[in-house]
């Protein structure tokens, strides 16, 4: 399969990236290159092979349920562009 220019624009919009037509063409070519690679890999017979979520056979270590983080709001908000009443302020969003 290969991605159409519309597919590229849609993916860019989902990722909130604005592409010029030239950039879209370049990105499209790169992405289609990756898809060709995937197509090649799909030629391998994977019948009976379970999909894997990680390259190694290791599993997640669990943490004890304990509160270990102190309040460091002042420190974090010192690097925020704008705060008020303890809140981070962002451009208005209403869905």
């Amino acid at each position, binding site marked *: 399969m290969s991605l159409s220019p519309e597919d590229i624009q849609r993916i860019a919009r*989902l990722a*909130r990236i604005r592409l010029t037509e030239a950039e879209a063409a370049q990105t499209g070519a790169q992405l289609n290159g990756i898809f060709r690679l995937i197509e090649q890999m799909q030629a391998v017979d994977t019948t009976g092979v379970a*999909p894997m*979520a*990680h390259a190694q056979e*290791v*599993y*997640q*270590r*669990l*943490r*004890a*349920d*304990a*509160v*270990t*983080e102190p*309040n*460091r*709001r002042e420190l*974090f*908000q010192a690097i925020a562009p*704008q705060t*008020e*009443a*303890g*809140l*981070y*302020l*962002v*451009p*208005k*969003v*209403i*869905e």
Partner: protein
Amino acid sequence: MQWETVIGLEVHTQLTTRSKIFSGASTAFGAEPNTQACAVDLALPGVLPVLNRGAVERAIKFGLAIGAKLNRINVFARKNYFYPDLPKGYQISQYELPIVEAGELPIQVGDATKVIRITRAHLEEDAGKSLHEDFHGMTGIDLNRAGTPLLEIVSEPDMRSAKEAVAYAKALHNLVTWIGICDGNMQEGSFRVDANVSVRPVGQQAFGTRREIKNLNSFRFLEQAIDYEVRWQIEQLEDGHTIQQATVLFDPDTGETRMMRTKEEAHDYRYFPDPDLLPVRLDDDLIAQMQAELPELPQAKQARYQADWGLSAYDAGTLTGARALAEYFETVVETLTKATLTRNPLPEGEADKAAARLRESAKLAANWVMGELSGTLNRDGLDIADSRIGPASLAALLGRIQDGTLSGKLAKEVFAAMWAGEGEADAIIEARGLKQLSDSGEIEKIIDAVLAANAKSVEEFRAGKDKAFNALVGQVMKASQGRANPAQVNALLKKKLAG
């Protein structure tokens, strides 16, 4: 045309861990904004999530409680979307391999039991909160809630009415609070319901197009929202329109649902396994430990109340409507049974009568817990945990009914006095002189006096007016200030009038 409603629910339950699912920040409700949002919750560069054992344990408990399949290997995935209260740009959730799959929850609809299938339950993190009030035209973001562990429980479209949906939501609420994985506080958002609703002509196999009602935070709103949505969809279809798949919000002020977004605008979440988290493996020891920690479940208690204690399905269902209520009830039954045995031991070779006695005590306790006690709690807006009369005290009062000291009516008076804080049942009976009069000699004396003073009623009775008898009983009860044992009064009065 006859229409059939089809409903499936997705419920977000907030888990009762102390810390967040992927960070060591506190999950306590009501803190100052952003004081419980650490570097991981803020998605500062370089941070990594570490999974909270407490969240995994609670999910396992839920899976065991609904007889589900636990995925021994389950995987966290990224659900990608942009919103300011989601600083990472993705929510860590589970997609292809959730921790819990294919369980069941029976619900009570009227007299019938119906089994609702649960498709899956997966662990995920909550997002932060956006405050759209005026901050100079900007939006305020509080990330305290970001990273709070949620178990999202998804049902099959097995419900056929708003009533069934509410029954399922209540049964689920009861179960998650019963096993202690969720505090169930709906005002604080600990239990949030999304309802997928569609309609189809009766007899049609294929489902109609569904609309999803988001974020219902009370059982009443759930019922109202579904009722409105169903009426709206049927009207649309009968007017020749088609239903567009969409997400809608319920407005409690108008009682209506309104469109939030259509399918075309719907997100494409581009799920993929989160490379920051390894697959989670559930080992046998952990599962066995969780199984051992599970209390007796509501359905098991219900079955036991019916089989061993002879309660009706309705009573058993009501009494297992909350764990605290069931435990209160059981303490009353046990205390009462023990007291009866002490006062009145079973004779040698009559051990078989124990079961009958137990049933009697259970029935009496059930009547009082569901009647007087629940009524009074309701009136005062109290929870069973805040009852002003403890189970042992109530058992002591009921014991005085069983041993004939109190009539039902007097017992209610004593109950009210206990509720008012006047002390234990025996002390109140003593102080108020409420002891039931069961001495035949004394009752006879009262009857004689009443008969002498009510010659007319006696004549009427002898002339065949049965009503006159009741009037005489009333007079005797009144003369004894309500203390005379009514059964004895009846018997003695009959004897006297016949004689």
